[in-house]
C-alpha cells in the first residue's frame, strides 16, 4: 500500500476528486451547495486531468438539471461512465429520468449535496428533503456523514453501480459536509483501481446501445406485462447490500477505514439508541461518549446504505439490550404517519426483531438548523421518560403544537482541540485566510483540522464567521463553536453589531483589528464587550491591520496581516514555522498573478507581529448599559418581534408561533435595518446640482433620493438640510428640490458620484456629489434623512414619468436590498417600482434577484404611504415565466368576474362610473388614478347593499384595477432553465411584462456560463473562454411579431431605459425587456458600473433597440436606439477581467475569440440595421379589424 497523502478539502472537493477520475462524461449544472463539484470537475478537465483510464472526461454544462440528467441517461445508455452533481430543486428536476435509468438497470452516479426543498420559503441550506424525494426512484442511496466519507463513498458509489447495475445516489449534507473543510486521507489511483472492476466496466460497455448489436430500450408496455417487467429486476436490488458491504470491506482492507451498511457506536449493552444518518452522526457520537462516561447505556446507529434499506443489517447492528429507539429524520413529510427513516426503521425492526423496542421519531436540523450534542442528550433524556413522545422535534421551540424537546444548553462536550472563531467581512479575505490556515496546519503537521464558515445572506457588507478547530484527535464536532479558545474580530465595527464574545470560553484570547492602539482601545470598546472581557478573563490583543495592509499596498485586504497574529497567539504551530508556511502558501496561491502580489503579502506578514500588542484590561468593568434598539416609533410589531431578533443573530431563539404559517412576510422591512456599512457616503452640493436625477436612477440601493416640495415644507428642517429651487413647467413656482442620502443604507459604492455630470466651475474635481468619510458626515445626515422621509411624496400626476428626472421624483418601492455594492441589476428594479410599484405583481425567478429581493432577515420590496406596493413572489428557477402568466390569468379572470358583476349592477349605478370601470384598463398613471377614484365611488355607492353580487363586488373591488404583471429574472433563467416556459409565455399573446436582468452568467451561484455568456469571456464552466456566441434572446422573441422587445442599458442611455419600460408596460400583449446588468462576475471596477455601460453600447457589444409591433400598415417596428459602433469591441473587452484574464492565460485563443467577437458585433449590427428598415405589421382579423393575438396596439 502506498503512503497515504493527507489533504484539507471540503466535502464537495472530496467527492469531485473521485468522481472525475471515475467518469467519462460529467453532465453539470450549477446549484447551491453542489455547484463546486461541477466547477471542480470542469476545472480538472480544463487543466487536462484525466480519468483513471487516461482520458480527459467530457464535462458539459446543460440548460437545467433536467437537461443534465437527460444527458447522463444518454451517456450511460451508450456505454459511458457517467455522473452528475446536484442538490435540492436540481435533484427534483432529475427525478423523472432517475426512474428511467434505474428501471433500465444502467450504472450511473449522482453526487448530491443534500439541501432543503423550497416550500414555505427557499433554503439553500442542508437537510434531507431532496434526497428523500428520490427514494422511490429505484436508485441506491448511500449516505456519507463526513468529508472523509464523502471521499470514500464516492468511490464506493461508482464501484457499486458498475457491479450491481443499479444507479447510485451518493449524498452528504449540504454545507455541513459539502462546505466543511476537513483533513482527510486521499484515495490514490490504486485504491480506485482496486475497487473498480474492469470486468464490470466491460459488462457495462457490452450492454451499451449500439447499431452493431441493436436493441430497443424504452419500450411502452401494456397491462399484460408491465407489472411483471417491473418485478424482473428484483434480484439486482437484492444483491446491492452485499455488493456495498463487500466494497466497504475492500476499502477497509486498503485504508483501515471500516464502514458497515449500518454502523453502531456506543455501549454494547445500550438500552437507548438513536438511529440517524448524515452529518448529525458526529454530534451524536460525541454526546454518546459523554453520556457513557457518566454511566448511561446509550448508543447511536448510523445508517450508511439507505436504499435498498438494510433491514437485517440494522437489526444486527443494534445491541440486543436496546429497549428504546429514537429515529431522527432531517426532513419533513407533512401528513405522513412518520418521517421516512422512522418508518423504515419501524418496518425493518418489526420484520427482524422478535421483540420490537419502543421506536419514536424526531425531526431535526431542517435547513441547516444546528444539531448539537446537547440536543442529542435531550433526545436520550426523552427516551428515558415514562412515555417518550412518539414524534418530536429537536433544536427549535415549538410553542404551537408542543412537539419540541427542551435542550439543556449546559450540556458540553470536552475537547482537546483548539477552537477558534473569526469574525470578518466577505471582502476582507478572512474566509480565504482561514481556509489556508486549515491547510497549513492539517497538511504540515500531525494535527487534525476542521473549518466551517457561516455567511451573511447579503452580498454587500456581508459578515462571515469562521469556525476552526485543530487538535491531536480526529474532529467529529459537526456543529458551531460555542466555547472558543481564540476569537479574532477582523473588523472593529462588528463589535457593535455582533455578539463577538458570546462564544468565547473563560480565559479566551481576543485578537482585535483596531484603529486604536493598546493604550486607547479600551475606552472605544462597547460596554457589553468590556463586561464580557472582564467577566470571562479574556486576554486582549490589538493590531491596526488596516494600517499595515495599507502601508504595504494591500488596500483593505488584511488577511495576511491577521493570519500570523493568530498563529502567534494560538500557539498551534511555532511562529517562525507558521510564518514560513504562510509565505509559502501565499507564493503558491498568488505567484501566478504576479510577483508583486506575493511580495506585498510577504511584506505584510513580516510586519504583522511587531504591529500587535496586548491590552492591559482594567480590573473593573463599567456598568453595562441596557441595549436599546433604535427602532422608529412607527415600526410594526412584526418588525420588533421577529425582524429585530433576526438582525440580532437571535433568530434561532424565535419560537414556531413567531413564524407566518405560509411563509408570507410583510414587505418593506429593510428600512429598519440600519447597517451603516459604507466607509464613504455622498455629500450633495445643491449649488452645482443640475436636477438631472442620474444619481438617483443609478443608485443600486435606492439610497440616494430626490424630492420636490413647496417651501413651506422646510419648516422644522434640521440644521444643514439642503434644498435648491427646482424649475419645472409642471410644478408651481418656488418648488424646491432636495437630494438626500440615506446615510445608514448607502453602501458607499460611489456610482452616484461617478455618474454625476455637474462639476464646479472653480474646482473641476468637485462635483455636485462627492464622497466623504461616512464617520464624519453620517451623524448629521441621519436627522436630515428622517426629515426628508417625512416630506410628502410628489403628486404622481403632477410630474412627467417619461423623463429621467421626472421618473426619479417618484418614490422607489424597492430599497436597501442585500445586493452587491454597485449591483447592475437593482437600478432597473428601483426604476420599475417608481413607475409601476403601486400596481405591480412580480413573479421573480430564483437567483440573485430573489436572494437580494427576499432573503431574510429583511424585505426590500416596500410600499407607499397608501399601503400599496409591489406584491412579490418566487416560485422556482425554472417555472418563473409560467408562474407570472398564471398570475396574469388570475388577474384576467378576476377582471372578467368583476365586469360581470358590474354589468349586472350597472343599471343601479352612475353610468359614468360604470363607463370608467368597464373601460379596457391601461397602465398609465392617469388611468390607474381615475380607476381608483371610481372604485372608491363604487364602494360608496354599494355600501349598505346586502345582495351577494354587491357584497362580492365590494370585497373584490381591487380587481377593477388590474395590476401590471412583471416577470423578473436573470439570464440563467431566461436563456437556459426557464427558456422553454418563457418562450411559451411570449407566444401566449397575454399581457405580461418580462424583465431579464442579464449579467451574462449565473451570478448567484458564482459566475457559471449561461447561454447569455458572450464569446471570449472566461466563466466557470467555460474556463478556457466561451467559444460560442451569446444567444440572441431579443431576436428570437421578436420573431413572434406581436411581442414588444427592448434591449436596454441603463448606464448607457437612461432615457431609452425609461421609455422602454413604459412601452413594455403599456403594450397589451407580451413584452420582453433585456437589461444589461453589470456584475462583479465581469471583473470591472464596480464604482463605474453604470458609466462602463457606455462602452458596451459604443462598441456595438450591446446595441440598444426597441421592437414595437403595430397593426398599422407600413410599420417599421424596429427602432435602433444606439449609434453604429464607434470603438472596437476589444476596447470594451479589455476593461473587463472576464475577457482580459483569457489574454493573460491563453493569448492565442483570446486573440482568436476577440476577432470572432468583433465579427459577432459586425454581423449583428449589420443585421439590426437592416431590421430597422424592415416593414412588418401585425396580422389583422378581417372580421373585427383587430390585430391578431393582442387586443389592441399600444399608443
Amino acid at each position: 500500500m502506498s503512503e497515504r497523502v493527507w489533504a484539507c478539502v471540503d466535502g464537495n472537493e472530496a467527492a469531485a476528486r473521485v468522481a472525475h477520475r471515475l467518469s467519462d462524461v460529467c453532465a453539470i449544472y450549477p446549484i447551491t451547495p453542489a455547484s463546486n463539484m461541477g466547477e471542480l470537475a470542469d476545472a480538472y478537465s480544463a487543466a487536462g486531468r484525466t480519468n483513471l483510464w487516461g482520458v480527459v472526461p467530457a464535462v458539459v454544462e446543460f440548460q437545467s438539471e433536467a437537461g443534465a440528467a437527460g444527458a447522463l441517461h444518454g451517456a450511460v445508455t451508450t456505454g459511458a461512465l457517467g455522473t452528475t452533481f446536484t442538490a435540492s430543486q436540481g435533484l427534483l428536476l432529475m427525478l423523472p429520468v432517475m426512474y428511467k435509468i434505474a428501471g433500465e438497470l444502467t450504472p450511473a452516479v449522482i453526487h448530491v449535496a443534500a439541501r432543503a426543498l423550497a416550500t414555505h420559503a427557499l433554503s439553500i441550506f442542508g437537510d434531507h428533503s431532496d434526497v428523500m424525494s428520490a427514494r422511490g426512484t429505484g436508485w441506491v442511496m448511500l449516505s456519507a456523514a463526513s468529508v472523509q466519507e464523502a471521499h470514500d463513498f464516492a468511490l464506493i458509489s461508482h464501484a457499486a453501480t458498475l457491479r450491481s447495475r443499479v444507479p447510485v445516489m451518493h449524498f452528504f449534507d449540504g454545507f455541513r459536509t459539502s462546505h466543511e473543510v476537513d483533513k482527510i486521507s486521499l484515495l490514490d489511483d490504486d485504491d480506485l483501481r482496486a475497487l473498480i472492476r474492469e470486468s464490470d466496466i466491460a459488462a457495462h460497455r457490452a450492454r451499451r446501445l449500439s447499431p452493431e448489436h441493436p436493441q430497443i430500450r424504452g419500450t411502452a408496455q401494456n397491462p399484460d406485462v408491465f407489472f411483471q417487467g417491473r418485478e424482473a429486476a428484483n434480484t439486482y436490488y437484492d444483491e446491492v447490500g452485499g455488493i456495498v458491504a463487500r466494497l466497504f470491506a475492500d476499502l477497509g482492507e486498503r485504508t483501515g477505514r471500516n464502514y458497515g451498511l449500518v454502523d453502531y457506536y456506543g455501549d454494547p449493552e445500550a438500552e437507548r439508541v438513536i438511529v440517524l444518518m448524515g452529518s448529525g452522526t458526529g454530534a451524536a457520537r460525541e454526546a454518546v461518549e459523554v453520556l457513557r462516561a457518566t454511566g448511561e447505556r446509550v448508543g447511536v446507529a448510523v445508517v450508511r446504505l439507505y436504499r435498498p434499506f438494510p433491514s437485517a443489517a440494522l437489526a444486527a447492528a443494534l445491541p440486543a439490550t436496546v429497549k428504546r429507539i429514537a429515529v431522527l429524520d432531517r426532513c419533513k413529510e407533512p401528513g405522513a404517519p412518520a418521517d421516512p427513516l422512522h418508518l423504515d426503521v419501524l418496518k425493518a425492526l418489526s420484520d427482524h426483531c422478535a421483540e420490537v423496542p419502543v421506536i419514536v421519531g424526531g425531526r431535526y436540523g431542517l435547513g441547516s438548523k444546528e444539531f448539537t450534542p446537547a440536543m442529542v442528550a435531550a433526545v436520550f433524556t426523552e427516551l428515558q421518560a415514562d412515555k417518550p413522545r412518539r414524534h418530536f422535534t429537536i433544536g427549535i421551540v415549538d410553542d404551537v403544537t408542543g412537539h419540541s424537546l427542551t435542550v439543556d444548553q449546559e450540556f458540553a462536550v470536552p475537547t482537546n482541540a483548539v477552537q477558534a472563531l473569526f469574525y470578518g467581512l466577505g471582502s476582507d479575505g478572512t474566509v480565504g485566510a482561514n481556509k489556508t490556515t486549515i491547510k497549513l496546519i492539517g497538511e504540515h503537521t500531525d494535527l487534525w483540522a476542521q473549518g466551517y464558515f457561516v455567511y451573511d445572506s447579503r452580498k454587500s457588507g456581508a459578515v462571515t464567521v469562521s469556525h476552526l478547530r485543530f487538535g491531536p484527535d480526529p474532529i467529529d464536532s459537526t456543529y458551531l463553536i460555542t466555547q472558543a479558545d481564540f476569537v479574532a474580530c477582523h473588523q472593529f465595527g462588528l463589535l457593535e453589531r455582533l455578539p463577538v464574545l458570546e462564544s468565547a470560553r473563560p480565559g479566551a484570547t481576543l485578537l482585535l483589528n483596531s484603529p486604536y492602539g493598546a493604550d486607547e482601545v479600551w475606552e472605544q470598546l462597547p460596554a457589553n464587550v468590556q463586561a464580557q472581557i472582564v467577566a470571562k478573563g479574556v486576554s486582549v490583543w490589538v493590531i491596526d491591520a488596516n494600517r499595515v495592509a495599507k502601508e504595504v499596498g494591500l488596500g483593505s485586504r488584511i488577511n495576511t496581516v491577521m493570519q500570523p497574529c493568530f498563529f502567534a497567539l494560538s500557539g498551534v504551530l511555532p511562529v517562525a514555522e507558521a510564518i514560513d508556511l504562510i509565505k509559502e502558501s501565499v507564493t503558491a496561491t498568488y505567484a501566478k498573478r504576479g510577483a508583486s502580489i506575493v511580495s506585498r503579502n510577504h511584506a505584510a506578514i513580516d510586519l504583522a507581529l511587531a504591529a500587535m500588542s496586548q491590552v492591559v484590561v482594567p480590573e473593573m468593568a463599567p456598568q453595562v448599559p441596557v441595549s436599546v434598539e433604535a427602532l422608529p416609533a412607527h415600526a410594526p410589531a412584526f418588525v420588533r418581534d421577529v425582524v429585530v431578533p433576526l438582525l440580532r443573530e437571535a433568530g434561532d431563539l424565535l419560537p414556531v408561533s413567531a413564524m407566518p404559517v405560509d411563509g408570507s412576510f410583510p414587505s418593506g422591512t429593510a428600512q429598519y435595518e440600519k447597517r451603516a456599512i459604507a466607509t464613504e457616503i455622498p455629500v450633495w452640493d445643491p449649488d452645482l446640482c443640475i436636477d438631472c436625477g442620474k444619481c438617483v436612477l443609478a443608485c443600486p440601493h435606492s439610497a440616494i433620493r430626490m424630492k420636490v416640495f413647496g417651501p413651506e415644507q422646510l419648516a422644522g428642517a434640521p440644521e444643514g438640510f439642503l434644498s435648491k429651487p427646482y424649475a419645472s413647467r409642471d410644478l408651481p413656482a418656488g418648488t424646491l428640490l432636495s437630494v438626500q442620502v440615506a446615510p445608514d443604507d448607502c453602501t458607499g459604492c460611489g456610482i452616484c458620484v461617478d455618474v454625476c455630470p455637474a462639476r464646479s466651475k472653480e474646482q473641476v474635481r468637485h462635483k455636485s456629489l462627492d464622497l466623504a468619510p461616512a464617520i464624519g458626515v453620517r451623524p448629521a445626515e441621519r436627522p436630515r434623512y428622517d426629515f426628508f422621509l417625512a416630506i410628502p411624496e410628489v403628486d404622481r400626476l403632477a410630474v412627467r414619468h417619461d423623463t429621467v428626472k421626472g421618473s426619479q421624483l417618484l418614490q422607489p418601492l424597492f430599497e436597501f436590498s442585500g445586493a452587491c455594492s454597485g449591483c447592475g441589476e437593482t437600478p432597473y428594479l428601483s426604476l420599475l417600482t417608481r413607475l409601476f410599484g403601486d400596481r405591480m405583481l412580480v413573479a421573480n425567478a430564483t437567483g440573485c434577484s430573489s436572494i437580494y429581493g427576499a432573503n431574510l432577515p429583511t424585505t426590500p420590496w416596500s410600499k407607499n404611504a397608501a399601503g400599496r406596493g409591489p406584491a412579490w413572489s418566487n416560485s422556482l428557477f425554472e417555472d418563473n415565466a409560467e408562474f407570472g402568466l398564471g398570475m396574469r390569468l388570475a388577474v384576467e379572470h378576476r377582471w372578467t368576474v368583476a365586469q360581470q358583476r358590474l354589468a349586472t349592477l350597472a343599471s343601479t349605478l352612475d353610468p359614468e362610473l360604470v363607463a370608467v370601470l368597464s373601460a379596457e384598463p391601461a397602465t398609465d398613471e392617469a388611468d390607474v388614478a381615475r380607476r381608483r377614484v371610481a372604485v372608491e365611488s363604487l364602494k360608496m355607492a354599494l355600501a349598505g347593499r346586502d345582495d351577494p353580487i354587491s357584497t362580492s363586488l365590494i370585497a373584490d373591488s381591487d380587481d377593477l384595477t388590474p395590476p401590471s404583471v412583471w416577470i423578473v429574472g436573470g439570464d440563467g433563467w431566461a436563456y437556459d432553465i426557464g427558456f422553454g416556459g418563457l418562450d411559451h409565455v411570449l407566444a401566449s399573446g397575454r399581457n405580461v411584462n418580462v424583465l431579464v436582468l442579464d449579467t451574462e452568467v449565473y451570478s448567484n451561484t458564482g459566475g457559471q456560463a449561461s447561454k447569455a455568456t458572450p464569446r471570449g469571456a472566461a466563466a466557470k464552466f467555460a474556463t478556457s473562454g466561451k467559444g460560442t456566441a451569446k444567444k440572441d434572446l431579443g431576436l428570437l422573441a421578436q420573431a413572434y411579431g406581436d411581442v414588444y422587445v427592448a434591449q436596454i442599458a441603463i448606464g448607457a442611455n437612461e432615457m431609452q431605459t425609461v421609455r422602454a419600460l413604459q412601452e413594455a408596460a403599456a403594450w397589451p400583449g407580451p413584452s420582453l425587456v433585456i437589461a444589461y446588468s453589470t456584475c462583479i462576475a465581469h471583473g470591472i471596477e464596480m464604482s463605474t458600473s453604470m458609466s462602463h455601460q457606455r462602452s458596451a453600447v459604443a462598441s456595438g457589444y450591446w446595441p440598444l433597440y426597441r421592437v414595437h409591433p403595430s397593426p398599422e400598415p407600413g410599420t417599421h417596428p424596429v427602432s435602433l436606439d444606439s449609434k453604429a459602433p464607434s470603438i472596437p469591441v476589444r476596447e470594451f473587452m479589455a476593461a473587463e477581467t472576464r475577457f482580459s484574464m483569457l489574454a493573460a492565460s491563453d493569448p492565442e485563443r483570446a486573440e482568436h475569440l476577440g476577432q470572432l467577437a468583433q465579427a459577432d458585433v459586425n454581423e449583428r449590427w449589420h443585421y439590426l440595421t437592416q431590421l430597422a428598415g424592415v416593414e412588418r405589421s401585425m396580422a389583422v382579423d378581417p372580421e373585427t379589424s383587430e390585430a391578431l393575438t393582442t387586443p389592441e396596439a399600444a399608443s
Partner: protein
Amino acid sequence: MTQLTTHYLGLELKSPIVASPSPLTSELSTLLRLVEAGVGAVVLPSLFEEDVESESWSLHDRLEAGTGLTPEASNFLPDLDYGHLLADRHLRLVERASQRLGVPVIASLNGNSAGGWVHYAQQLVAAGADAIELNMYDVAIDPKQTAAEVEGGYLALVREVRAAVDVPVALKVGPHFTSFANFALELVAAGADGLVLFNRFYQPDLDIETRDVTPRLTLSTSVDLRLPLRWIALLHPLLPKTSLALTSGVHSGADVVKALLAGADVVMTTSALLREGPEYVSALTESLIAYLTEHEYESVAQLRGSAAHDAATDPRAYERAQYIKVLSSWPGGHGPH
C-alpha cells in the same frame, strides 16, 4: 564602401542608426523590417514595472472581489494560469528578438522600486538582452526632497543594477538637472556604460471641454534635436570612454549627421519611423552615406565628434544660450531694439 560601423556600449553595430522604443519595436514582425532596413540595433519598449504591477493587482483585485461574499459562491470568476502577463509577454519578446534579429537587442526598463529595477534587469538579461537601457525619469514633486537627494537616488540605482547584471547598462535620462555635466560624470562613475540623451516625457494636457487632464505624447520634430545635440557635443570630450546616444528629433539624414558630428555613437529615432515606416531607416542610411561620400569621410568613426565641443570652430556656441545670437541668426533677423 563607406564604413558605417560604430561601437555602442561595447557592442559593435553595423550602423549608428538605432530604432528606439516605439510600437515598431514591440512586435517581431516590425522589428524584422527595421533590421531589414538597416538599423544597427534596436531598443525594445520599456518594461514598466508599474504597468506590470497594475496588471497584476487589477487581476488580483477583481478575482478576489467576490470571494467569501456569499454562501452560494466561493468566488465569481474562474482562476486560470496566467503565463502571459505583461512581464511574461515582454520577456518573450526579448527572447525572440535576441534569437531572430541578428543585431544587438537593447532592453529598456522602468522600475518603480529598488528591488524591481534589479529583478527585472536580471530577467531581461536572462531573456537574452545584449544591453540594458534604464529608462529613468522622475517628476520631483516632493518639496522636501533636495536636488542632491534626487540625483543620489539615480546614482544608487545605477550602482545596484550595474552590480546585478553582466551586460552593459545605459541610462536614458531627462535634461532637467541643474548641473547636468557634473551629474553625467557621476552617473558614469557610478557604473553607467552609456548615456541616452534625452528622455521625452508624456506631458499633461487639458481637454477644455471636459476639463480633464489628458496626458499626451506628441511626436518629435527636428527642432527637438537641438537640446540633446548640445549636450552630446559638450559631454563628448568629457566622457571619451562612455557611449553616447542621441535621441529625440532625428528626422532626416541631416539630423543623423548632426548627431554624429556632435559626438554621438548612435543616433536613435522613433517619430520619423512611426511617421514614415520602418523602411525609412534605409533612406536615413542612404543620406548618411551620401553625406560621408560627398564630404569624403571614410567612416562614421571619423565623422563622430568632429564638431563636438572640443573640436568645434566655435566651442562657445555650445555654451551660450543668449537669444540675441539666435534671433539674429534668422535670415534677415534682427536683435531686439
